[in-house]
Structure formats: C-alpha cells, structure tokens
C-alpha cells in the first residue's frame, strides 16, 4: 500500500509548438488538501485534464493506491474515484438538481422487461447527498434557479455522490462571495475528514495558505517543487511561481484627479431586484474602484449605464452634457467604453485574429471616401497597440483564442485603447490572470488615468481595489452604500458597507 492515494509520475504532454507538461509529478495523500499553483499557462489545468482523462498523456504514469492505472476518458476517471469540478461549470439549468447530480448514471428500475429511470430513488439519493454538502434544497428544483455558488455546491455534491477519493477543484472561488467561500471551505473540510484527497487550484494566496496542507508549484510546464503549506509565505510562493522576485504588487500612481467628468444619476433597473437609485460621479483622471459582494449588482449597474441592460430611470452626463444611451454603440460613440466581465462570453471574437479583435471598435477612424477601410493603417494601429500593451502573440494574424487569458485581456484592453474613450469601465480586469500579467494591466490602468481618462474598476479582490483606487464606491444588494477614499480604505470598512443589507 502506497502512502499516496494518487500519484502522477513523469507526465509529459506536448501540443503543436509548445510543451505543456515537461516531466511533471504530483503526489496526493488521502485526507489532505493539495494546492496546485502556478501562473496561467504553467500547465495546472493540462495536468488535471490528463488526470481526469480529458487529455491523453504523451508519456507518464498514473498510480492509484500504488497500482498503475490507465485513464482514457472522464468515465474511467469517475469509475476510479476521481471527480472534477470545472472552472467553468457545465450544468444543465433547465433540468432539476437531482437530475444534474445523477446525470449519466441515473438509477434504474425494471418495469417488466424495460428499464426506466427510478425517480424516487434518484431524488431521495440526491437529497441525502445534498445534505452531506450542507445544502438545504429540494432536489426537484430546477438547477437554473440557484446562484452560481449553489450550482457549484451541486457539482461538489455530484462528486460526493460518486464516492470520489480524489476531488479536483479548479478555481472554485473565483465567483464566490466571502460567505460562500466559507461555506465551501466547510464542505472541503468535511470531505477531508472522510479521507478524500482534494486538489485545489486557485490564484488567491490567502485561501491557499488557509486551506491547504501541501502545495505543489509549477512554472512553464515544469515541476518546481512540493512544500508543506505551513512553512510557506505569499512572497515565497509568488517568487517560485514567477521565477523572479516581484517587489511591488501595484505600480505607483501619478494620476491627479481633476474636475467631475462623468455623472450617473438615479439609475434604476427594470428588474426590481437589481440596481436601484444609483448616483455617482467620476472625475477626470480618477480611478474609481467599485466594491461589493457577488449579487451587489455592480456589473448590472455598469452594463445598465453602458446600454446592455434596460433601466426605468437614470441619466448619464459627460462633462455636463446629457447622453442618450440605448445600446453600447451609443455609449461608445460618446466616449464611454466598457471591458466586460465575461471574457469568453462577451469579450473575445474567438475565431478572429488579434488584429480584428483590436480594431473592431475603432473602424470608423480608418474609413476613406466614407466607405473603404484603410487596412494598412489598421495594421499599423494594431502593431502599435500590441507593442504598447506588451501583448505576447506570434503575430497579429494569430486567432485570439490561442492566446493565454492574460494576453487575451491585453488585447481587449487594447481594443479600447485604440478607440480612445474618455471614460473606461473595467469589470474585473484581472480575473483569472496570473500575477505577472496582472501587474502589467495595473500599469496600463495607472497610465490611462495619468493621461486623464476616467476609470471605473469593478473588482472582487479587495487588495486590488485598495491598491489601485483613488476612491472606492461600495454597493450592496443593488444600492450604493457609500464611498471611501482610497487612502483610508481597509478590508474592514469596505466589508461593513458591502454588507449593509436593507432590513
């Protein structure tokens, strides 16, 4: 009997043009939380996909309880007790919670010679499993009625129901509030007590240090090392991940906020549960951070201003001039741009080139004779943009989908840079981006503010808001609950405003 429940040895995996995993190992002890860390592109997800049978390893071996096993597809992995909760959840919202949990392995009963789904057993089993992950929901509820974090718990329930011995959690907290994170940690601890080995992938240092027992760090497809979590510090982890010392987390800011540039007054959504009576302003050259828990309707408010969502009331003024915004085009034509939260869903034009992605919002500048585009000029703009943003791409013709998340984000910010707006709304600009690229994006934001752009930045990372904002606006449950000067902001006073629910 091995001391490890699962062991991956000497894993090698290459994709055309890149070695994703270069002889990597991973050893999981039962009843521990094993954090897997590394920048985006370090190979964490690839390694997990090899373990879960989504990818086939070119070389390498997997052992379960010291015995060599072959995993060819996710079904194999599940049968061997390996379960995975994906970074992007893939549930079926229109079906019930129970059906989602037992998807693909519905309990059956015999109806004469015909096998039919045993719904009674399905729902009673589902109820029991839900109780195990401390969820108090009717398994007959439609999954779509749950929040993201609740759906995630359902995914974990699914893993529990499969009696998994290894559970992979890929960035489970990226869209959770503090309370929800606590709830997740309770579940993780429960599973740990039962001897389940948990692989925990996250970018959030404080979480890693709190919950994990062991930490394996990867960089550029290489195995760097495994440490006992108790001896680690944030600085040490970052140094190992990045391979160099990062002295500053945030760049110095030289922007000087000027006169009020952009005013929002009495914004109220058509949805009574969404944003209500929101008024605020941003000054020229100011970075306004927007804090709040998930569900505070920050994104909804900004999308309402930008013309993506409908409102019943609300006016927007730029330098005192009222604007009519019914669709994003109106906002953009008036010098207001927005980087949306969902990079894949509403950001990148996946199959199109980096060049097309950068230029799409500013084609009007390159019209000749009123209808022909000057493609040469566009290419010059694109090259300049790539250089300015330090975007790492083989060429401007490369499809954006093949870049890493950080570089995709740089392209998207570059899209708005090219458009040269006066007001730039950034919704979670650094979500899912590694430490190195984050710093570069902070520098760009700071530089834009210095140039006199008004920046509105939504972020769920308090440290980022405190480190980057001149002023922080806090929202709770659809209302603006207060403003804090950037210099005075602390996690505590932000949280206090973020939890001012109406009684």
């Amino acid at each position: 009997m091995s001391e490890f429940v699962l062991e991956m040895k000497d894993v090698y995996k290459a994709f055309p043009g890149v070695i994703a995993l270069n002889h990597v190992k991973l050893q999981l002890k039962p009843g521990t939380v094993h954090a897997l860390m590394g920048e985006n592109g370090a190979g964490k997800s690839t390694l997990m996909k090899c373990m879960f049978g989504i990818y086939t390893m070119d070389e390498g071996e997997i052992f379960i309880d010291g015995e060599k096993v072959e995993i060819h597809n996710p079904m194999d992995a599940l049968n061997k007790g390996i379960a995975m909760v994906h970074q992007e959840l893939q549930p079926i919202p229109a079906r019930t919670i129970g059906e989602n949990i037992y998807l693909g392995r519905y309990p059956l009963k015999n109806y004469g010679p015909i096998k039919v789904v045993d719904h009674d057993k399905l729902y009673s089993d589902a109820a029991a499993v839900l109780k195990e992950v401390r969820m108090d929901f009717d398994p007959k509820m439609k999954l779509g009625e749950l929040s993201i974090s609740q759906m995630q718990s359902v995914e974990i329930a699914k893993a529990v129901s499969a009696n998994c011995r290894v559970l992979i959690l890929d960035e489970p907290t990226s869209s959770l509030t503090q309370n929800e994170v606590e709830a997740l940690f309770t579940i993780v601890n429960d599973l740990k007590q039962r001897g389940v080995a948990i692989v925990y992938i996250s970018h959030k240092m404080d979480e890693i240090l709190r919950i994990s027992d062991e930490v394996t760090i990867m960089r550029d497809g290489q195995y760097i090392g495994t440490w006992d979590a108790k001896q680690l510090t944030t600085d040490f982890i970052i140094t190992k991940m990045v391979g160099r010392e990062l002295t500053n987390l945030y760049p110095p800011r030289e922007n000087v906020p000027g006169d009020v540039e952009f005013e929002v007054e009495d914004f109220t959504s058509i949805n009574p549960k969404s944003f209500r009576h929101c008024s605020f302003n941003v000054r020229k050259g100011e970075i306004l951070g927007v804090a709040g828990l998930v569900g505070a309707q920050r994104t909804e408010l900004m999308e309402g201003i930008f013309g993506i969502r409908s409102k019943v009331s609300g006016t927007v003024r730029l330098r005192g001039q009222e604007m009519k915004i019914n669709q994003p085009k109106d906002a953009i034509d008036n010098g207001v741009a927005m980087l949306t939260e969902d990079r894949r869903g509403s950001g990148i034009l996946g199959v199109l080139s980096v060049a097309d992605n950068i230029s799409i919002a500013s084609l009007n500048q390159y019209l000749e004779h009123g209808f022909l585009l000057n493609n040469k000029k566009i290419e010059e703009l694109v090259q300049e943009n790539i250089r300015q943003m330090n975007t790492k791409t083989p060429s401007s013709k490369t499809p954006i989908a093949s870049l890493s998340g950080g570089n995709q984000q740089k392209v998207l910010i570059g899209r708005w840079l090219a458009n040269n707006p006066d007001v730039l709304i950034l919704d979670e600009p650094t979500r899912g981006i590694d430490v190195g690229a984050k710093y570069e994006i902070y520098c760009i934001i700071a530089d834009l503010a210095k140039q006199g752009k008004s920046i509105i930045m939504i972020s769920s990372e308090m440290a980022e808001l405190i480190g980057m904002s001149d002023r922080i606006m806090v929202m709770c449950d659809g209302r603006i609950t207060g403003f804090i000067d950037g210099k005075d902001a602390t996690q505590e006073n932000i949280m206090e405003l973020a939890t001012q629910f109406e009684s």
Partner: protein
Amino acid sequence: MKENKNFGAKLLDYGKSNPIVILLVIVSIIVGLTTKNFFSWNTFNNLVSNTAVRFIIALGVSGCLITKGTDLSAGRQVGLAACLAGILCQRGDYSGKLLPNMPEMNIWIVLLIVVAVGAVIGMVNGLIISRLKVPPFITTLGTQTIVYGLALISTNAQPVGGFQSAYTSFVAGKIGSTNGFQIPYLMIIALLFGIFFWVLYNQMRHGKYMYAIGGNEVAAEVSGVNTKKTITMIYMTAGIMYAVAGWLLAAKSGGSSSAMGQGYELEAIAGCTIGGISTTGGIGTVGGVLVGVLVFELLKIVLQFLGVNPYYNFIVQGIVIITAVALDIRKNLQKK
C-alpha cells in the same frame, strides 16, 4: 514566415484544410482522363455558366452562414424572382401573357423591380432574425414557404414563356467563338459580383462587423457594432443576390415556373461549406465560396459523364454536404 513558403507547401497546407476540394478535383481529373470529351470547351462553357448563377446565390448565403445563420428561403426567392422577371419580360405580342394589358417593359427596369422585391423579402428575414430573435433556420423556413406561395400565386402555377429577345439574348451573350473558348456574360457578371463581395468583406466596415458577429455576437455588440442593422443588411443583400440570380436564371432557361430554384439553397450552402465557410461562424472568404461552388458544379458534371442516373445525384450531393461540414467541425474540434 508564411510568405516564404513555396507554392508546393502552400498547396499542401490548402489540401490539409480543404481535403474535399482536393479529393473532388482529383476525381474530376481521373474521370477526365478516362472518359471522352471531358476536357472540351463545351464542358468548360457548361461549367462556367452553371457556376455563375449559383455563385451569385452562394455569395448571398455566405453572409448568413458567416454570422452563424442560414437562409433556407434562398432557392424559393430565386424562383419567385425568376417568375416575376418572366412575367414582366414577356413579349408585347405574346399570346399567353399573364398580364394581357401590360406593355412591353424595359428589361433593366424589370431587374430593378425584381431586386426591390428581393430586398424587401431579405429585409423581412433580417428584421425577424435580428429584432424578434427567431432562429434563422425557422425564420427562413417560414419565408421559404411564403415565397413559394407568392410564386404560385403570381404565375397561377403556370409556366411562363415568350420572353423578349433582348432579355434572353443578353443573358445568353458571350464574347468569343461559338465552338471554342468563350467568355459568357454570365461569367463576367458573376465575377463582378465576386469582386464587389470581396471588397465588401475585406475593405468595408460591414464585412468586418459581419465576421465579428460570427465570431461572437455579444462581444461584437459590446464593441459598438450595430448587430441588428448589420444582420438585417446581410439578409437584405442576400435577397438582392437571389433576385439577380432569378432574373438571370429565367432568361438563361428561356422560361420560368414556380418550381424553379427548388433546392438551390442547399447547393449554395454546400458550395459555401466545401469552400471553407465554417458553420461555427466567423470564418469564410469570397475566394473560398467561388472554389466551393465551382467544385460542386464540377462534381455534377463528373457524375453526368460517368453516366450516373441523375436521381443518384441528390444522394451524392447530400453526402458531400454532410462530409464537408463534418470535416469542418473536426478541424475545429482538434484545435481545442
């Protein structure tokens, strides 16, 4: 880097991403070498004039496909245009005129009328798809039937003949000798439309917006693209192309009927797909459409030369369409 590749390497790259084109060309060459009279001006002229009209239709459909839509009403729209053009272009002294009191009309005015009708039908498609958000498949399936009904009503389900000679002779016109190399007017017209679409797709905002919508409609909208307008324009342009094709087709055939154009949408979609327009959206070129339609027409001629019962053509064509799409989907799957 890529510019340095020689022609052979480029051809190999092309073959890898368009295996079906290479396959069909090889089959044609084999058939050409083993059957008599395949390599002749007659075959060439046939191929060119068949391709011309279908290329124009395929250009119309291409925009719909690139934006992840489709246009199943294409064939019937061609048919309606052919019927209307036929009715309006009948000789003044023709005894079987559908509109007995109508004076002889100028064929170019007829073209304008037919194009206007096509534009309206296309606009209706586009508005339903972009405003009411009805899936393009359903929208155009509905208009397909409606348009067929209009064609039946306008012709009273009777064949239309007796066209003015100015009309038929223009469309049949050609430069060159009767038995040798010829450049049919049809080919010139088709190429002009090809050039126009190339400019539209590569040099104009409309084209860039179209590709962006195909790549990610929400992202395009958030980037300031007026997606509703662009989509409406795409279906409207398509309608105009079908109308032009119908106008040409009626004269080319020397008569029209409500049955005309049936199934042309599938041929056009097949041509586009063979030519590399991806059903996953955002990908496709005018050159690809031309190659796709050309190869598809070549296939039909090859089958004819092989003496295959024409009924089997449908089966072969269906298989080719599905194969082309399956290969395209595989290509995208592998990238993941």
